[in-house]
């Protein structure tokens, strides 16, 4: 059977978006992998060069759903960096709150999918139920469950009234217990450990070699988080621990996400305590000059980097971004090698891939 190649698509892999894999197998063991991307390629890097800066905020928010806030906020940061715009202190905290709310939702979604794949239907429902706390929170504060429309150049376009700040604080109190419960279940449940421990291992040296980022990197012992390494918005004033695990397996990646969800609750609470009064956005905006700049943020899946090149007009000469999933896909070659075909969906989903982001 050596040398047999099978093609796996989104349905076999429990993916919500189209990505295909050409998998070389020896019996039921994976010996080689090729990722076949591009099925939701929308030419977005071309489209952004045909739109002005304001239009691009709207367009970039629609790049994907789970990390939809990271794209417009990082793009706005790039424009602000280039034009020398300092966003108000209140906006710095409000941007961090929006990103952390999205992080909790995103991480819980992935943990739910992992439970679903390993046949833990009740746990899947429980994680999604807990996630609903965050979905309700987004709907109440921003008016939407996925796209928050929170960002504008020079600041934010939403505010927390005293009532909504109290509501957000109560929602954080509400989710703490369930998050602890989920962490305990994933850490100790025998059935989950049996299915996830030692599976899809990405050793530290391979994680460095493949240049993976985010929870995938941190689960393989790489202590790197953009919020710590290159602080932005309010993160230079917030206290948090970077979640790092050493095992590099499916379980370690899930544990990193659950720890980060707990840290995100703490970050939101700190923001609510420290939230300064003041404007939400700069009163006047300067012309966006010709130049080039870099902006980065820690999206739920890891380091997101934007490069902006301008010529003094209101449209970018070039706007390029690299999403965290971009390198994480390739590292599946290491994670899947020697594993059983039946475990491919679990290992693929353990990198929490974002296909819309990857293809653009």
């Amino acid at each position: 059977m050596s040398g047999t190649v099978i093609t796996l698509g989104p349905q076999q892999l429990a993916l919500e978006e189209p990505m295909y894999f050409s998998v070389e197998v020896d019996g039921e063991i994976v010996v080689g992998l090729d990722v076949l991307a591009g099925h939701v390629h929308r030419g977005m890097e071309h489209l952004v060069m045909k739109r002005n800066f304001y239009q691009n905020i709207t367009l970039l928010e629609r790049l994907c759903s789970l990390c939809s806030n990271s794209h417009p906020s990082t793009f706005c940061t790039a424009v602000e960096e280039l034009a020398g715009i300092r966003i108000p202190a209140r906006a710095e905290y409000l941007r961090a709150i929006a990103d952390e709310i999205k992080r909790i939702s995103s991480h819980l979604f992935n943990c739910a999918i992992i439970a679903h794949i390993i046949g833990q239907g009740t746990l899947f429902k429980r994680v999604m139920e807990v996630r609903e706390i965050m979905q309700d929170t987004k709907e109440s504060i921003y008016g939407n469950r996925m796209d928050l429309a929170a960002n504008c150049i020079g600041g934010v376009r939403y505010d927390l009234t005293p009532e909504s700040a109290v509501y957000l604080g109560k929602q954080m109190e509400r989710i703490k217990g369930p998050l602890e419960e989920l962490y305990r279940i994933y850490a100790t449940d025998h059935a989950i450990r049996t299915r996830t421990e030692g599976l899809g291992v990405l050793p530290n040296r391979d994680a460095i070699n493949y240049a993976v980022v985010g929870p995938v990197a941190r689960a393989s012992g790489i202590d790197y988080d953009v919020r710590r390494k290159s602080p932005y918005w309010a993160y230079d004033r917030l206290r948090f621990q970077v979640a790092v695990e050493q095992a590099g397996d499916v379980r370690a990646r899930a544990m990193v996400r659950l720890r980060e969800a707990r840290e995100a609750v703490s970050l939101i609470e700190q923001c609510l305590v420290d939230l300064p009064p003041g404007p939400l956005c700069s009163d006047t905006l300067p012309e966006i000059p010709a130049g080039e700049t870099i902006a980065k943020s820690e999206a739920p899946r890891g380091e997101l980097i934007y490069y902006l090149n301008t010529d003094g007009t209101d449209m970018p000469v070039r706007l390029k971004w690299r999403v965290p999933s971009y390198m994480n896909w390739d590292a599946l070659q290491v994670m899947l090698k020697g594993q059983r075909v039946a475990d491919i969906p679990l290992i693929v989903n353990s990198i929490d891939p974002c296909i819309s982001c990857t293809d653009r």
Partner: protein
Amino acid sequence: MIDFKEKVSETLSLRTGAEVTIEWRINIKGVMTGWCRLREAALILPAAEAVAGLEGRLSMITAYLSDSAKQKGVREIAFHFDLDGTTLTLGIELPLEGARIPSLTPLFRNADWHEREFMELYDIQVIGHPAPRRLFLDRSIDPAAFERLIPYSTFSNGANSKALWEKVMARSGNNRKELQ
């Protein structure tokens, strides 16, 4: 901080055999970025070796073609490296026609996808890439897609438009004209 800047400049100069000037910018959060122009394309390989020696990580590669560069008869490409939180961008000018650049895959494995992607979007040839095949765009689409006018439905693989419907009908044999 000064030591770090000097170390990066010295390592790059030593490896490339040319005086390398880096413009360092520090933002209000104290985050530093470095910007450097290499005078010729061939220098990217020794420069990348220098970055690898500094335990840098390839973060992204941006190929682009601005109107001003086009008027000068050149195109540009920028290599963005991460040095433990500091982003160093090495820029290069390439000729408009017949642009060639060495592959960074022997040094940075993740250059693979970046190089395959910009090869399908821009008219740049990567020398020494282990598998220079398409990454996102279908093989039926001509290369250098960002340099030509292409119907949007074709560009997005006709995934959600009349073009897709026509493809389906043609394959199912209901559209004899397209089959011919």
